[in-house]
């Protein structure tokens, strides 16, 4: 397998009046072509910012890239000119978002929005821009491919007339407009009800399987990630703390934070196990803790943890962890 | 100033085109030139029996003819529709003999019936000019003796009668009757339409913006400058503010303007090709005291104020274009005398009078009311305020709408302490001024003083019925002296009347009996 996307030492800061927040602090990760990777972490750990970095969607200012590389198919995305980035968006890397209600333009019909996306892809490809009629036909078939019944009526409707699940399917269809290689899904089911969430996750799994997509799924819900991804990256406060195959991580987490996270999730099937919280709260990124960013909340923390930032090291084959105390 | 192109109306006014861009041309109507006159005041109602003010009467005088007409300075009454008239010795009967060739714009003759009809209409409508004659003339006492003779029989001898007749314009009865709605005597239609025999006829009427008059072809009275030179028409254009009006003259968009401020004179005089007409006026300005109620009921206070007032400021405010009054009558009024002891600024006297009043140390505030929006009375108010500081009297300057002011002045207990009032006598007869001081004038705008002196009232009544001119004039001299003694007002000044025009405008004839700004358009033409 070849690496489709390689992120190296990626640091991103957000500048504000109160100072500069190191939102991403040296991210290192790789996604192989055709694989499914889940990124899990609590709010503010930087997972969405990371996803947006892939498409250059972080507004700048305040976002400021401090260092690092994001290589996609060998090209560094961080140094791409805006036009080149536009050409990439949707055609190579597509994205689906958290709240389908707010990511669809309320005053434009589904047809207009899809046609614009399709024609925008054509323009970015540099070839002929197809006519609206042709674009609409394409939109029609895309909607069908995400399992939406009666695409013709759907195209004529407006976002508010659709249910949450339908909106998310429409957004997925739009993401497929440019026939992308990498699909970045940023909390795609968080705003949906649990029954619909299951349907959408199934759809994503089906698309990954049928189209050979590479998937990067971001969620705060370990259950969602576990259901959809073969490999999981755990993030905490702008750093990657653990990177492991799904089953291995769930059964035998190595990083204390990953352990805490798994222990905090109540298990419907095992109510006798009381979930345990992790003491303390997520640190402010304006003045992050020294050394290991997790050390103030970690019961195994030592003086070294406060002083020295642990490197993400390969502790077992295919498993990386960033902890001074982690043992196989 | 860049020369601007002028617009011209080509034959008939149907087709419009831009004039050649080089130089300028006059407004033209066919081969004839059109004179453009600009003033500030609208002409809401054209009906000559409905209302009058300077702008309205200027247009009325152009569209209609009267039996007689005022011309010249000093004003004289000359025959017009009436070639002559006779007066009976008792002063009760007037017989007018009409010109043979006079005809209305529709070609019908101006006959005795038209005259009778017009006077009757004016009296019935009881508006505008009606007040002048209504107490002395009943409609049924007007008789068309034959086609060219009309006889008026008055209820009582009334010496000023003839002096009012020029303002009673003759309307075309056929047209009026044809346009009568619900017995309104044609009032609605006459608001914006002409039915006259005058030198001009109406072409376009938009009373708030522009009135376009065409010269009446073959005007029965002929043209003083000759058919060759006569105008093709006149446009009265309303420009409310003085600055744009001046600019329009400067740019030759208009040929003659009025309502210019004294401060403008210097500026306009320096403009090449512009001349000023500056004439002593007929309109008196006075500050009327409330002689019945409040502090000013005290004649000593009134005298004190009259002596404290800085009369020179009146002249300065008008840049010299004004004359102080030397009597309640304007100087060009028949019977006017210079009253010897009329007050002038004399602080010693002022203080002396003040000490005799109820307010020996001042310390009061008096209200000074002027018509809102009028600039000169406001400035005079400031001068008054400045003058009275010497007496420790403060002045509250209030601008009010005309209606409010008049309404307040109608009763002594609401009349302001001091009110600034302009009065233009409508005729040359001294009675028109004298009668302001009569009991009957109380509460009217010129009677705001509520002047109370029965002896003077008696003299006024006697004088208006007196047919012997010498005796009348003697009475009026005495009336003037008595009024000055009672000081019902500060006798102010008579402001000059000002027009500014391009030097190619000819035939301008000043007559003080017309209102401020009003021009007799008939004798005027454009040369060059």
């Amino acid at each position, binding site marked *: 397998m070849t690496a489709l996307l390689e992120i190296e030492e990626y640091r991103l800061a957000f500048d504000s*009046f*109160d100072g500069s927040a190191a939102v991403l602090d040296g991210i290192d990760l790789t996604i192989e072509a055709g694989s499914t990777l889940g990124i899990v972490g609590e709010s503010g750990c930087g997972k969405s910012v990371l996803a947006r970095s892939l498409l250059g969607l972080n507004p700048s200012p305040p976002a400021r890239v401090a260092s690092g590389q994001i290589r996609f198919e060998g090209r560094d995305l961080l140094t791409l000119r805006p036009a080149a980035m536009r050409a990439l968006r949707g055609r190579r890397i597509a994205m689906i978002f958290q709240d389908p209600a707010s990511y669809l333009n309320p005053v434009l019909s589904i047809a207009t929005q899809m046609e614009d996306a399709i024609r925008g892809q054509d323009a970015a490809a540099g070839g002929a821009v197809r006519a609206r009629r042709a674009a609409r036909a394409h939109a029609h078939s895309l909607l069908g491919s995400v399992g939406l019944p009666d695409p013709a009526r759907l195209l004529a409707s407006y976002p508010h007339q659709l249910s949450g699940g339908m909106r998310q399917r429409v957004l997925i269809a739009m993401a497929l407009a440019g026939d992308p290689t990498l699909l970045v899904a940023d909390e795609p089911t968080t705003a949906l009800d649990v029954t619909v969430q299951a349907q959408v996750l199934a759809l994503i799994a089906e698309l990954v399987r049928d189209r050979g997509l590479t998937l990067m799924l971001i969620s705060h819900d370990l259950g969602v990630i576990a259901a959809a991804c073969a490999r999981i990256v755990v993030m905490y406060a702008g750093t990657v703390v653990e990177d492991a195959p799904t089953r291995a991580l769930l059964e035998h987490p190595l990083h204390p934070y990953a352990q805490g996270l798994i222990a905090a999730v109540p298990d419907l099937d095992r109510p006798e196990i009381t979930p345990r919280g992790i003491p303390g709260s997520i640190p402010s990124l304006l003045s992050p803790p020294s050394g290991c960013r997790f050390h103030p909340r970690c019961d195994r923390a030592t003086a070294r943890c406060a002083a020295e930032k642990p490197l993400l090291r390969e502790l077992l084959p295919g498993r990386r962890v960033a902890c001074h105390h982690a043992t196989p | 100033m860049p020369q601007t192109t002028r617009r011209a109306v080509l034959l008939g006014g149907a087709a419009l085109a831009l004039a050649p861009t080089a130089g300028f041309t006059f407004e033209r109507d066919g081969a004839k030139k059109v004179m453009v006159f600009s003033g500030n005041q609208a002409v809401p109602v054209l009906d000559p029996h409905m209302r009058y003010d300077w702008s309205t009467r200027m247009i009325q005088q152009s569209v209609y003819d009267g039996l007689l007409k005022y011309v010249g300075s000093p004003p004289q009454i000359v025959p017009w529709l009436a070639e002559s008239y006779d007066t009976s010795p008792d002063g009760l009967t007037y017989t007018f003999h009409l010109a043979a060739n006079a005809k209305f714009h529709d070609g019908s003759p101006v006959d005795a019936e038209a005259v009778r009809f017009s006077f009757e209409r004016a009296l019935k409508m009881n508006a505008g000019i009606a007040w002048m004659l209504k107490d002395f003339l009943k409609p049924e006492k007007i008789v068309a003796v034959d086609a060219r003779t009309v006889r008026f029989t008055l209820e009582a001898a009334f010496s000023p009668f003839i002096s009012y007749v020029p303002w009673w314009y003759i309307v075309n009865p056929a047209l009026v009757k044809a346009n009568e709605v619900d017995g309104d005597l044609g009032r609605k239609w006459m608001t914006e339409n002409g039915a006259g025999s005058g030198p001009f006829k109406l072409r376009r009427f938009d009373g708030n913006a522009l009135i376009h008059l065409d010269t009446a072809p073959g005007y029965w009275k002929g043209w003083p400058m000759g058919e060759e030179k006569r105008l093709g028409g006149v446009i009265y254009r309303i420009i409310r*503010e*003085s*600055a744009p009006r001046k*600019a329009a003259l400067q740019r030759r968009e208009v040929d003659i303007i009025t309502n210019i*401020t004294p*401060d403008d004179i210097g*500026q306009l005089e320096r403009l090449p090709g512009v001349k000023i007409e500056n004439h002593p006026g007929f309109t008196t300005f006075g500050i009327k005291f409330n002689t019945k109620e409040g502090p000013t009921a005290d004649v000593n206070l009134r005298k004190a104020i009259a002596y404290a007032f800085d009369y020179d*400021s009146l002249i*300065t*405010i008008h840049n010299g274009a004004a004359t102080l009054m030397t009597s309640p009558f304007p100087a060009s009024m028949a019977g006017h005398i210079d009253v010897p002891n009329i007050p002038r600024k004399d602080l010693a006297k002022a203080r002396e009078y003040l000490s005799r009043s109820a307010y020996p140390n001042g310390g009061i505030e008096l209200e000074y009311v002027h018509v*809102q*929006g009028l*600039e000169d009375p*406001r*400035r005079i*108010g*400031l*001068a008054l*305020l*400045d003058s009275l*500081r010497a007496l420790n009297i403060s*002045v*509250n*300057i*209030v*601008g*009010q*709408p005309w209606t*409010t002011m008049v309404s307040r002045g109608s009763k002594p207990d609401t009349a302001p302490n001091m009110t600034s009032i302009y009065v233009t006598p409508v005729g040359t007869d001294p009675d028109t001024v004298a009668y302001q001081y009569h009991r009957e004038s109380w509460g009217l705008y010129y009677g705001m003083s509520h002047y109370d002196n029965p002896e003077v009232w008696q003299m006024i009544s006697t004088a208006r019925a007196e047919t012997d001119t010498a005796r009348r004039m003697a009475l009026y001299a005495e009336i003037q002296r008595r009024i000055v003694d009672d000081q019902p007002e500060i006798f102010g000044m008579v402001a000059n009347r000002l027009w500014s025009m391009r030097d190619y405008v000819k035939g301008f004839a000043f007559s003080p009996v017309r209102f401020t700004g009003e021009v007799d358009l008939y004798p005027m033409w454009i040369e060059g």
Partner: protein
Amino acid sequence: MILPRRLRLAIFLLTRSFASMLGIVLVTVILGLALLGPVIVPYPDHVAGGIDLANKLQSPSAAHWFGTDEVGHDILTRVIIGARLSLLVGIGITLAAAAIGVPLGILAGLVGGPVREAIMRLTDLFLSVPGLVLAIALVAALGPGIVNAMIALILVWWPGYVRLADSKALSIRAEPYIEAARVAGAPTFRILWRHVLPNSLSPLIVKMSMDVGQAILAVASLGFLGLGAKPPTPEWGAMISIARGYLPEWWWYAVYPGAFIYAAVLGFNLLGDGLRDILDPRSHRG
């Protein structure tokens, strides 16, 4: 701890924006002139109406920086004293309108039902006639004068505050913390006083700052139409109204008072904009 940060943030936001700084400078200058006016004017006598006809309509010079008017008043003197008047009038109108409108609006928004319906209909009625026309009608009826102009403007101004306070009260009423207070058993008046009013304050302050400017402009407009201050009161709009007759030769007479109106209104509007950036960074309605 917290106040300094907020203060620092406020200063940062203000100093970063040229427009806000300009607003502060202009308002400070107008305030300064209003406070020091009677002390610093070169011809204090010209305020009360002392006239000097010999020196009328002088062009700007060392003796009269802004020239003189048609009765010889020093225009600089009158313009400075005019600042005091305009400021008093502007603040007076705004405060009075807010004092009428805000309680009514909060009451309407909080109580709802027929009370709100009645209050809002009355408000709509006044808002359905654009202010200036109504004010003109009112002043024409009451008679010109600065006090009448103020009364007229207060009458047309208060409904704006009802609207604002009502909408704030409505949105705050939906906040969970209001529900929390109700659950705690808080009576309506307490909710109004402790929660609704303090949380409505920011937009109110912004609106009031801008309204001071707009009220100054409105009074000047009435003055210009001859319906405002009476002579010899030095009111900017009335000065321009008179000065109009002296254009174009005596241009300074109209230009200086107008420039002061412009500067004052601009100042209060920019200040309001700046305050909005500080107090309510997301809102930006015109």
